[in-house]
Each structure stands twice: as C-alpha cells, then as structure tokens.
C-alpha cells in the first residue's frame, strides 16, 4: 500500500476514475498545466490530455454552468472552484441549477457533478480563502456534501462522489492537504456516502465532528483520557446525507454529546445535528448537547485565527460542562 497525504489521495481518486470512465472530465481555473494552485490535479492533464483536464477562463458561474451542461450531455464533470470564498460567484449554478436539475426535468437529466473546493482555517491564507461555508450547501435540497478528514476516506469518498449521479459538493481542508500521510490502497475502492466513522471508541461522551475538527477532537479525547474520561469521536465524513443512526447509537451508550464545527456557531450544521438528536434520542440524554464552534463574526484576518478556531482546550471545556451538568 502507498503512503499518501490527503491531496495525493484525492488526485489518485481522480486518476483512477479518469482511467476507468472516459466521461470523467476535470476543469477549473489553472487546473490543467500546473495542476491547480494546490497541485491537486498535477500531472493529470499530461496523462489524460487537454480534452479531459483543462483550464477555464476566470468565471465561476460559467464553471458551474458548464458542469451542468456537460452533465446533461452524459459527462461526469469534476469542477474545481479555486477557493471556497469564490463559490458565491457560482452559487446559482451550484445550488439552484445543479441541485434542482433532477427535479426540474422529471428525472430526465442527471447532474453527476463533483464541485471540489479547498477551504478551512489555520493556514493564514488571504481573506475569503478559508471560510467554512458548508452550512450554505447543507441547507439546499438536492446536493450531497462531503468533507473528508484523512487520505483513506478522501480517496474512497471522492470515487463515490464521481460515480454518484447527483451533484456532490466536496470540501477539502487546506490544513489537511499536507498534514500527514496514511496508507491508501491502490486502484479503486469506495467509501459510501452517508456513512459516519467512529474514529475513537468511548463510553462517557460523544464528540460529533468532521474535517479538521476530527483531529482537534481526537487530541482533546486523548487529553481527557488522562483524567479517566472516555470520549467517543465520530467523524461524519458526509454531512448530507447525515448518518444520524451512528450518532444516536453512540448517544445511547454515552448519554452525552457535543458537536464540534469550525464554522460560525449560529444556524450551522451543529444546530441541525442537535435538532436531529432531539428528535431521535432525547430520552437518552443526561445533559443538553453543546456546540463548540467559531464565533459569529466574519472569518478573521490571519493574526487571530488560531484563537478564533476551536481548540482542544475548548472541546475539553465543553465535554466537562456536559459531564458536570
């Protein structure tokens, strides 16, 4: 098995699918020759040619619209939006057009598109390069949402996303691109969309999270273990559809939970997850479910992002609060 970082794993997934299915095409700003500003698609144009992997003019709405048109034509487009903050320019095409194509055409047309975008804080990037905008996507019916936390999942989830006949929004955390390497099988394998992963077992409290915050939460759980508290950590992997079953099963065991997200606190996915826990498992709870999240401000300039982002210490404080309720 090869050792890969998250970026290489995602590239490997795209390579496997480009090879397997001639309808897979990749495009976006600068993705061709140099392989994107993060080199996620590096080498793919050379290997598969300019008809399969190509640069576009600088226009995000058109990237989205072209993806839709190609989807209608039977292609499987992988469209890169260079940085997450630029999806606003393409939101009509992603959330209005692609997400409702099946509904509008009575099932005649698929939008088998993967919209890929890097996001995520802690890398001191420029404004609007790192925001956690997954809540915007998750609120829209008709689109799936994936955020991997490690190389193995990233490859398997990406292959699933490419093969899916509905649009998938795939968010790649900037801080994870090069963070670490892990074993990734060669060739094709899939990680099913809509299935969470219990990354650490525990019996005292459930920490529900995704993306970079999986690592922050695991760190917190390791610290907690030293004082005898056993935290279970769930990596959601897919936010739409949400694997509420895994969450509920865990809460039945631990009776306490917190949700950790990098995004701003209000009206985000954590709120949604807590609402679903209330619907499904309220009688198993011994304490209210708390949120650890960014404050409701714009994402800050680099100076203070380390304080702004949820830290293991804040996760530990929230765990202690639900344990001492």
């Amino acid at each position, binding site marked *: 098995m090869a050792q890969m970082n998250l970026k290489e794993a995602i590239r490997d997934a795209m390579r496997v699918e480009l090879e397997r299915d001639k309808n897979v095409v990749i495009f976006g700003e600068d993705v061709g020759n140099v392989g994107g500003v993060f080199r996620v698609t590096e080498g793919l144009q050379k290997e598969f040619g300019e008809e399969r992997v190509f640069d576009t003019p600088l226009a995000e709405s058109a990237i989205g619209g072209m993806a839709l048109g190609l989807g209608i034509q039977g292609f499987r487009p992988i469209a890169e939006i260079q940085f997450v903050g630029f999806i606003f320019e393409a939101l009509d095409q992603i959330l*209005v057009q692609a997400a409702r194509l099946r509904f509008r*055409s009575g099932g005649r047309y698929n939008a088998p598109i993967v919209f890929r975008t890097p996001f995520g804080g802690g890398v001191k990037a420029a404004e609007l390069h790192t925001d956690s905008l997954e809540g915007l996507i998750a609120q829209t019916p008709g689109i799936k949402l994936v955020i991997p936390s490690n190389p193995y999942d990233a490859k398997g989830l990406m292959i699933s996303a490419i093969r899916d006949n509905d649009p998938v929004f795939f968010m790649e955390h900037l801080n994870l691109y090069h963070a670490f390497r892990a074993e990734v099988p060669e060739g094709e394998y899939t990680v099913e969309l809509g299935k969470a992963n219990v990354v650490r077992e525990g019996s005292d409290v459930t920490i529900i999270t995704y993306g970079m915050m999986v690592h922050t939460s695991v760190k917190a759980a390791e610290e907690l273990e030293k004082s005898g508290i056993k935290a279970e950590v769930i990596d959601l992997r897919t936010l739409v559809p949400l694997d509420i079953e895994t969450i509920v099963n865990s809460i039945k065991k631990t009776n306490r939970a917190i949700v950790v997200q990098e995004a701003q606190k209000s009206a985000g996915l954590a709120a949604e997850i807590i609402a679903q826990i209330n619907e499904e498992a309220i009688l198993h709870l011994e304490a209210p479910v708390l949120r650890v999240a960014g404050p409701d401000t714009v994402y800050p300039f680099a100076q203070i992002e380390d304080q702004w982002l949820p830290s293991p210490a804040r996760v530990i404080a929230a765990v202690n609060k639900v344990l001492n309720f």
Partner: protein
Amino acid sequence: MSKIPYEVYTEEVETLSVLSPDGEIVNKEYAPKLTDDQLKELMYRMVFTRTWDERAINLGRQGRLGFYAPVSGQEATMVGSEFALDKEDFICPGYRDMPQLVWHGLPLYQAFLYSRGHQHGGEIPEGVNVLMPQIIIGAQVLHAMGIAMGYKLKKQKHVAITYTGDGGSSEGDFYEALNYAGVYKLPTIFFVQNNGYAITTPFSKQTAALSIAHKAVAAGIRGVKIDGMDVFAVIHAVQEAAERARNGEGATLIEAVTYRFRPHSLSDDTSKYRTKEEEGQWSEKDPIARLAKYLEKKGLWTEEDTVRVKEEAKAKVNEEIKKAEKTEKMTVAGLIDSMFETTPKHLEEQKADFQ
C-alpha cells in the same frame, strides 16, 4: 472633431431584413430556401402559436393556468428560429420561450402543466432535446454553452441554442457564457430577443452599447443584428449560425429586434410604460401579417386558411388543457423522490409523513 484612431467599434451595426412589411423580398441573397410545403408549415405554426397565446391569456384569466408569459409579436423569432434547427439540436429557453419547446417536441399539455406548477410539466420526453424554461435570467445561457461543450467533446455536429431578452443580456452569466464560447469555439447560438423592454425597463436604460450584437465583439465571437419581426431574416440568421457552428467556426450572437404585443406577464399593465402610438407602429410590422402577404401573393395562403388554422389551434388547445386538468395531481412523496437518484434514508422518513 476627427475620429480617435484607436477608438473601438463606434459604428452602428446594420439590421438585416429580408421580408418587407408588405410581403416583398428585399434582400434576395439572404432569403432562406424553403419549399412551398415548408412555407405553409411555417405559417401554420405561427398562426397556431398566436392563437394558443390568446387562448392562454384567457385561460390565465379564468385561473386555469398559472405563470404565463405572453408571446404575441415574437412568433417570427420563436417559431422561425426553431424551424431553422435540426431535431438533435438543443434548446435552452428563458421563461417566455415555451413555443420553441413545443415545436421541438414537448407535448402542449405538458406546457400547460408546467404553467400550472405541476412537476410532470417538466418531465421532458426522451428524444426531445430541451431544458425547461429558466426562471433565473441568464442561467440558461451558461447551460447552452456547457451543452455545446459536450457536443464538441463528443465530436457531434449539433448546436445548442439559447434564448434570452434584452434584459438578460445585462446579466453576468451572459458575458461569462459568451466568453467561454469564444475561448473554446463552441457550437452555441445566443439568440437575444430584444423586445424593447425588460418587464417595464426600456432598452435605452438597459445598456449604453450601440447594440446587443456589439457585445459579441468583446467575446471574440460573431455578432449579427436582424429584424426580429421578419421570419425570413430569423431563419437565415439561425441557419447560417448553425452551419458555422457545425463547421467548427464557433458561436454566434444574434440580436433580433422584436416586440411583444402583450404585457410582460399576466399581471402587468403596459399603459404605465408604453404608448398607444408605439404599439400601433409595431403592429404594422406584425410578423404573421407580413408572411401572410408574401404567401398570398404566391397563391399559397388565403384568409380562409388563417381561419381554419385558428379553429384547429383552439380545438387543440382545449383538448390539451383538458388533458392537463385531468392529469393526476403531483404528490409530496413524488416530489421528495425527485431530489436524488436514490432517495436517502432521511428523505424516506420525511416521505412517510405525507403518505
């Protein structure tokens, strides 16, 4: 004052006319080559479309239709442009462009169902290459560009045509699509029906460009301006654009200057923004009367033919609206099932509340 030598395109573009208002061919070299049967079919479709439009407005007033955007006056652009295409060519319409879809193969009762907000209205039959009318102005212009990209990658010699209005030509999506079509040399036809108004905003407040056709220049594609009340000019321009597209010569922006005789939608009042004189002047350019005069002179059409087609159209509209009214109501469960190819568990659960 002398002209600045590096000034860009400050000349008015000429408007192509082929058929004069009194039914004479004025620009012979651009007259499309149509057989007598094709000419009669074209006239049939235009009269049918006018009658359908009048009936639809009445049906709307009776509450038997939902959202409806009138089309009278634009039969030359709508019927003529579709007439110039092949069945395999793809149509990406705006909300007013229902006639193109129906003449391209969408059953009329489905157009009525769409208007009534029934999901089956959008269930496009296999083999009919169209999208449903787009509500977001300009979004469909990008889709046509993407579909054209698909034809190009598949090396198929079909074209994608898209329609928008003078208002739509101001949207960012419009420019992005033109630009992409230019860069990739795509087989796309951007057909702008400049009917003088976007809801109530007059063309003079829409752009300071000399014409919409000029906007092709910045994208490096071909731009032409035609008389949109002249069905022969429309057919010529679309045929030529399609031929160029099929030959790999890229995209064309066609500005067709036309007029909608009726209000923007069933809920606005034209007297607030248009004058009777203006309406009168445009009705003298009526595309149907113009073609009728030409055909009558050739002995291919009579007043009785018009009466007969109107009766046929009325009967067909009645039949199809009844079919739409008899179609079983859509269901919330069906709606839920149309969100994804395979309905995920959480939606299955939500469905249970509606069964």
